[in-house]
């Protein structure tokens, strides 16, 4: 199947030219490319060989796959899954057991150097036994698969940054893909889960251009992760005017006011949720009345509580302040004793001044 062109496959599947061009134009706008690029994308995709995709799932909850595949109507996500040759995917593949592993090994050999490696889930370094596939440790499987990968995409926060398994105290020693794959760029597509169409868009970019999109300092495609939720949030005017929901379901909450005080991490979270939204643009957490958890940022489980406002400190201060007060009083008391003694000694040792003391004896 992998030797068919994408264009041929789509025609075989009965996807009309019109639908196909609409898809390419949608892709172009999704990636903030000029509308005219839709045609260029169409030409490139049509002629492209269906790329082989190996999808490895490690310590994950399958939420990323769910995000990609939950669609009620034919969507970009769905088309991508049709366009690529998904040669290995635990959840979606029909095969299992040794047959599945054999399929994987064959695909890796045939398409060595050309396949796209997608990873979701974190890799446990604490004890390989925490997560193995067919007896092979995640780390070993990743190392082997990465060798022949043209591009490595870490889908979801677990693969991108360690995710939930890496939350304190990180009992499995979970690490991100980019910590183990260091000899080639890893595209991080974080989110818990990432927006389905964002995953699709990254793959589509690779299909079209054969390169990974421009990445930010954390390896995330700037086109989807270049703005914070806060800067694109429709409730931003309420933030700027100081109109906040004080508790869930209070008057402010029902009026749709800003959720900053309820712990929204929008200001420090880079993702496309506020614009692209979820479920084909239906809604996103804030719109549904819950603050952003910051799930596309590293260590979002450990940044001080989902319901504490961003400017709240993460360490309780009562005890340290009490200790500081006592310590300050102790230091102060010690200095005070010294001061009073010195002052008293000076006054006790006062030599009554006489006229003769006004001039120096030469």
């Amino acid at each position, binding site marked *: 199947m992998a030797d068919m062109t994408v264009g041929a496959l789509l025609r075989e599947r009965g996807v009309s030219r019109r639908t196909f061009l609409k898809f390419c134009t949608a892709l172009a706008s999704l990636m903030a490319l000029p509308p005219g690029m839709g045609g260029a994308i169409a030409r490139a995709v049509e002629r492209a060989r269906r790329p082989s995709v190996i999808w490895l799932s490690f310590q994950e909850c399958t939420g990323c796959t769910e995000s990609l595949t939950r669609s009620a109507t034919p969507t970009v996500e769905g088309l991508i899954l049709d366009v690529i040759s998904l040669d290995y995917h635990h959840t979606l593949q029909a095969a299992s057991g040794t047959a599945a592993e054999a399929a994987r090994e064959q695909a890796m050999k045939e398409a060595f150097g050309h396949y796209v490696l997608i990873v979701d889930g974190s890799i446990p370094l604490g004890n390989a036994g925490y997560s193995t596939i067919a007896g092979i440790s995640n780390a070993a499987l990743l190392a082997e698969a990465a060798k022949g990968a043209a591009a490595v995409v870490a889908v979801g926060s677990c693969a991108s940054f360690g995710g939930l398994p890496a939350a304190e105290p990180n009992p499995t020693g979970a690490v991100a893909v980019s910590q183990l794959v260091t000899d080639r760029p890893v595209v991080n597509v974080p989110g818990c889960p990432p927006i389905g169409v964002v995953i699709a868009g990254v793959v589509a970019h690779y299909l079209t251009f054969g390169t990974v999109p421009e990445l930010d*300092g*954390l390896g995330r495609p700037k086109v989807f992760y270049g703005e*914070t939720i806060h*800067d694109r949030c429709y409730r931003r005017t309420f*933030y*700027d*005017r*100081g109109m*906040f929901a004080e508790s869930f379901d209070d008057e402010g909450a029902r009026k749709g006011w800003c959720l*900053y*005080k309820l712990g929204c991490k929008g*200001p*420090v979270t880079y993702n496309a949720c506020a614009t692209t939204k979820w479920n084909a643009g239906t809604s996103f957490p804030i719109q549904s009345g819950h603050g952003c958890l910051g799930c596309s*940022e*590293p*260590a979002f489980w*450990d*940044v*001080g509580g989902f319901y*504490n*406002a*961003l*400017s*709240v*400190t*993460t*360490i309780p*201060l009562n005890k*340290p*302040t009490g*200790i*500081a*007060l006592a*310590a*300050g*009083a102790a*230091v*102060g*008391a010690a*200095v*005070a*004793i010294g*001061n*009073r003694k010195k*002052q008293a000694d000076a006054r006790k040792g006062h030599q009554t001044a006489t006229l003769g003391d006004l001039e120096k004896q030469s």
Partner: protein
Amino acid sequence: MTVTSMELLLWARGPGFEAAVVIFTLGMVWRLIEIFSLGRKPDLSLPRERAGASGMNTVFRRFLFPPGMLRRAPVTYLGGYVFHIGFGIVLLFFIPHIELARGVVGFGWPGLPTPVVDLVAVITMVTLVVMLVSRISDPAKRLISTFEDYLTWALTLAPLLTGYLAYHHLLLPYQTMLAVHILSAELLLVAMPFTKLIHFVTVFPARWYNGDLFGHKGVPS
């Protein structure tokens, strides 16, 4: 391994803030005891009572311009007021700061709209620059100014400037800029007990002593 911006922000919001509050608290208690330990001899002369002449009176009266002085030093007086009030507004009436206070002391208060605070921050920073120019160009100020004056000026400007840059997403990526802003505020906290910045507390006993010394003689100062 390099520190990510989120790790820096987490440190600033966590251990950094804790350390700053501890050093500030310890320092303030120590320094205040140090000052008052020196005591004051009682005044054996017969006092003269006069309404309006007392320590408390002077604590409040010194907020006003003494008669005839405003025209002699308008930049110092007006700049001083605009700076202090502006800094106070930015510190106390910016919503995220109020939430920070709520987390620390358990209660908050109403704030001002963010664009208003933003404008006040700009005015405050401009005023700080004006005050610096005045300090350098006025002969009396220039002579008595020390390294500490310039250091505290920079420490005071830094949170305003970095806060402004963070809010407007300038210079550094937001999370880093925010971390730098929080760290600059922590630096200011740590410097307060050990520099002239302690005046934000000692101004009250100092004015009180002044009013009491003058008030004993029946002079409203």
